[in-house]
């Protein structure tokens, strides 16, 4: 098996695991958003890998561009919400977001 494809695949998985691990273990809202971003990096990697395997980067490139645009908007919205929560709670602790439960 091609070293590069395997390396990319493994890297992508490791990035996903890193992101998800961070998502679960961290208590800071901004860090959580960064974790999501890391997962999205892994996805970008997977998409370009898909293009590489298919022999044409054109379509995945279009995908990646779209994904990046969406990613940014999501990050902005998430940051906005995080800042609003900070205004209410005085910190960014996710553990304080437990008014909704049950």
């Amino acid at each position, binding site marked *: 098996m091609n070293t590069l494809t395997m390396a990319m*695949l493994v890297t992508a998985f490791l990035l996903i695991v890193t992101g998800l691990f961070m998502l679960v273990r961290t208590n800071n809202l901004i860090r959580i958003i960064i974790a999501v971003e890391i997962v999205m990096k892994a996805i970008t990697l997977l998409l370009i890998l898909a293009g590489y395997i298919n022999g044409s980067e*054109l379509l995945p490139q279009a995908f990646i561009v779209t994904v990046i645009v969406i990613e940014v908007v999501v990050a902005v919205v998430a940051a906005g919400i995080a800042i609003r929560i900070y205004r209410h709670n005085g910190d960014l602790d996710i553990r304080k977001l437990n008014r909704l439960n049950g």
Partner: protein
Amino acid sequence: MNETILLICLAFIVIAAIACAMFRSMLKCAVSLAVVSALLACVLYLMGATWAALFELSVCAGLVTVVFASAISLTSTSRHQPENEEEHRKRVAGLPFILIATGMMLMVVIAATGFHIEPQANAALVGLSFKDVLWNMRQADVLGQIIVILAGAFAVAILFKESDKA
């Protein structure tokens, strides 16, 4: 040659991601993310996806880092919270081990199942430019991007606008 650089880039991406997760300082964390993005842009460039690399570098490494930096500065308190940061380190301390375990498990699974993917030639899109593909073949996505940006604009207007009452 390309391949070696790619592999090195990939290795550094993982290291930067781990650093991003482990850093106590939020700012360093955001910068690490920018490093991951930049390295990813390198990878994209080397794989031939130049437009995507450009977007990755400018938007993700640039714009998103700015967004995070401003968010961090907006939410930083004058009170330093060392205990929180110390706790964070404890909570993510297991990450390297988990990554090593995951990597080994992946190797084992790939070896055991005979998982096999090879690059192959693709004649379907030969002769087309990225512009053609994005603007012509992905019209729905382009429309979607427009709407997403519109949505982002409204979101910023709603979330960031200071309250009239306050």
